[in-house]
């Protein structure tokens, strides 16, 4: 995983994967959900997604749901740890946006 992931800031890919797993989802479903959420801006390849899913499983931020899926495709769901990571990231992003807005606001009026 990228350096930014280790120190707490999530990459776009990881952030969107976590968001798309608030409901059980499989590989293709995750890709479609991310495409839809980002309005087609973020498209994940299978290599990127597979790497992200494995790392997130190792960190216990998501878990496989194969025993309940009943289908052929393996499904995943976010865990409590993963949810907390998303909440922390949202707070971090809010802080970034607010600080940015404060500084830029004066210049916008000019």
């Amino acid at each position: 995983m990228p350096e930014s992931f280790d120190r707490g800031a999530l990459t776009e890919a990881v952030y969107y994967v976590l968001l798309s797993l608030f409901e059980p989802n499989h590989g293709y479903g995750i890709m479609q959900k991310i495409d839809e959420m980002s309005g087609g801006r973020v498209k994940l390849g299978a290599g990127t997604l597979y790497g992200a899913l494995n790392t997130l499983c190792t960190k216990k931020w998501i878990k496989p749901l194969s025993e309940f899926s009943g289908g052929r495709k393996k499904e995943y769901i976010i865990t409590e740890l993963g949810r907390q990571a998303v909440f922390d990231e949202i707070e971090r992003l809010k802080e970034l946006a607010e600080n940015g807005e404060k500084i830029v606001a004066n210049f916008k009026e000019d």
Partner: protein
Amino acid sequence: MNRNLEYKKRFYDMENEESWLNEMSEKGLALKEIKWRVFKDIYRFEPCDKRYVYREDYNMEGALEELTSPYIKFVTETYGCEFVCLANGKVYFRKAAENGDFPPVYTDLNSRIEAEKKFFWKTVSCSFCAFPIMCICGLNIYNTFDSDTVFGRMGFVFSIIALFCAVIDVVWFIPAALQKRKKIKELEKILDEKGGE
């Protein structure tokens, strides 16, 4: 086997190889298998009316066959594509163009760089493993060249292996590692220019 359907090539860059396979598909040739050779690999094709889009990735799991690899299963299920073959530490997929989009396996620079780095270190480790074997066996050339004993003859055989390792090391692993290093630097430069992702 029709000789016209065999091509000898060596690619160090996944994108170039993918483009070439896609061009071959445009010409009505579908990839059947790839055989590793020291100098150039042999790509075998078969005539095909369907047009395919090819994608490839590094075989990080070290999969030996399609059925036991979770990654191959994941990609084929996710994209609805087909597994073609495993060769040269890579796995090859294809999807009929009429069956929809087949995006690149890596769409995010960070994960692409990570994959290139893993492959780079795998290549470098293989190269370093071959080197001491090559040196130790190579020393036997001097000692066993005119030996009449069984051990002496065995040593001579090892020295032949050493020469083979040396050829592989120089012809395959070292250029592959250097090309990968160059690619990683290029990708990192793009990532820096973008200010990270």
